[in-house]
């Protein structure tokens, strides 16, 4: 850019009307972020370092007590309970995500292989469960389990897994379907033409093209799973605690808001780390 050109573009931005206009355009967005993300985040951060009073009130005395408690240092000495719950939360979120993707992939392929006019029908069928509230659906599972298996799986971890997978499956199907629908099938044919077995055709001709959809499916399954508390509560029979339940307890019966905030902060940080880890392969895949 020449000097004069920079001057001209600069002066148009510096002029009063331009600045006012620009602020006018971004103000609603900034306000929204401030009100519903910025301020709550700051509050949460502050609360995580506050102290719980003897009656559950919040005392603004700075302390690391909440995080020590999470790490297991309680009144009765060290216990691994909270760390176990954190690990278990990460594990179940990961396992649910993997299971959802493995189940969703064939479903997406099935829908994409239908005639175009049938595809929307199948997608609708997949979406119908989401017109029902999660709590109602989970009670539905309770009913099914109590009718079928008796106490063999419900209440217990297996019931929680089934509930988690079923509640996230459609979220996983949609992005995978979007990828599968756009597959360039001639690449699969090329793999076949170059002596590929069925597995090779899938591995090199189909799978790489659906990585973007898989990545989106993974992230939008994993993150809600981290914070899930309704499903473990109703299907785990109170014996299967996750971080979500723990947080809910702090803001509910235990009335320990600072500890709840510390737990929430930990969950948010875990989510951000997961997103960060996911960024790198995503960038390599050219997303």
């Amino acid at each position, binding site marked *: 850019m020449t000097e004069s050109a920079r001057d001209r573009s600069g002066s148009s931005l510096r002029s009063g009307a331009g600045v006012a206009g620009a602020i006018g355009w971004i103000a609603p967005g900034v306000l929204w972020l401030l009100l519903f993300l910025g301020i709550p985040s700051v509050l949460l951060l502050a609360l995580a370092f506050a102290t719980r009073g003897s009656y559950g009130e919040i005392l603004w005395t700075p302390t690391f007590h909440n995080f020590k408690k999470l790490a297991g240092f309680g009144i009765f000495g060290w216990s691994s309970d909270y760390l176990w719950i954190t690990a278990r939360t990460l594990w179940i979120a990961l396992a649910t995500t993997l299971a959802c993707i493995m189940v969703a992939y064939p479903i997406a392929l099935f829908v994409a292989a239908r005639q175009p006019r049938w595809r929307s029908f199948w997608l609708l069928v997949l979406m119908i469960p989401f017109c029902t509230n999660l709590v109602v659906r989970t009670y539905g599972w309770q009913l099914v389990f109590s009718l079928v298996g008796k106490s063999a799986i419900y209440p217990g971890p297996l019931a929680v897994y089934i509930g988690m997978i079923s509640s996230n499956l459609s979220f996983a199907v949609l992005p995978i379907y979007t990828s599968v629908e756009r597959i*360039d099938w*001639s*690449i699969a*044919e*090329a*793999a*076949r*033409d*170059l*002596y*590929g*077995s069925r597995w*090779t055709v899938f591995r*090199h*001709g189909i799978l*790489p*093209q659906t*990585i973007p959809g898989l990545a989106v499916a993974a992230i939008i399954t994993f993150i809600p799973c981290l914070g899930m508390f309704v499903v473990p509560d109703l299907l785990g029979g109170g014996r299967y605690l996750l971080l979500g339940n723990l947080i809910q307890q702090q803001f509910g019966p235990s009335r320990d808001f600072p500890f709840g905030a510390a737990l929430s902060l930990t969950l948010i940080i875990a989510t951000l780390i997961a997103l960060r880890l996911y960024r790198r392969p995503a960038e390599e895949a*050219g997303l």
Partner: protein
Amino acid sequence: MTRDEQLRISDISKSFGSTLVLDHVHASVERGEFITLLGPSGCGKTTLLRIIAGLERADEGTIVLDGADLLPLPANRRPLNMVFQNYALFPHLNVFDNVAFGLRIRRIAESEVMTRVRAVLDMIQLAPLAMRRTSQLSGGQKQRVALARALVNEPALLLLDEPMSALDAKLRAEVRVELRQLQRRLGKTFVLVTHDQDEAMTVSDRILVMNGGKIEQAGPPSEVYDHPSTRFVAEFLGAANLIDATRTENGVETCYGPLKLSRGPSWERGTLAIRPERIRVSAGEPAPNRLRLRARDVVYRGDHFDVFLEPGNLRMWCESSNALRAGDEVAIELPPEHLEVLRD
């Protein structure tokens, strides 16, 4: 020269739903021949190629390659390879791994893979780009990688599905010549599908002109061009004047009056064809098939003039305008040896 038939296509038919795409097609390809399936979209040429490749199933008929029945083999066990229209390179592999794909799937020793891939990349002058991702290549480079990926397997037959349709016009003209030279050098049998008659004329030893699921005419480019046997072939390859005619005792009767032919037609009523460049402006001496017509339009086309004559809307090419202007009367000759008698 003894005929060395490599591929025989017999009685192949194929329908998609109620649409008949291939209608009892017969064809034969010699070893080392560059053969082109030429036709408009929907004529069945791509379907025929895909049936040879094993990507589509024929409803009936047989295909024999090197003496063995080809159709029972699945696509991944046929000794032939294909170059796809949009190249279909593996997006997650670099150039080298794309080219090495077929060899590695067949578990060829890695040292041999290295040698063969390098040799092919050298041949198509892509060796410096071996480690590039395919998304970083130009259209012409992708096309060469696709070619290399197929040729490295030393297929008995190379199938090419409109390999140049995604290239721009100038590059296409260059690639055509390169493809022709490559085929000559390798001595391999190439089967190319295209709707571009220029491309077909440039590269082929023989052209199979397809229309409506049938092969209308098969022959070397010069034969198909100079002696078209049907109205479709005459009009699809280059420009042609079609003249309705009725047989008489010593020639035919047309809207231009009686015309002499070099050979008598087998029909009572039918069509003649003559190329615009074969119509001559009369030199004044008596000659057969002399007509006096009026130039309705003279259109400058750079290397020639298109002259439209009336009555009858004959189209003629002139090297120079010879001071011929719209409205002038002109004497022309339709040489009998260039008046082609069509089958239909």
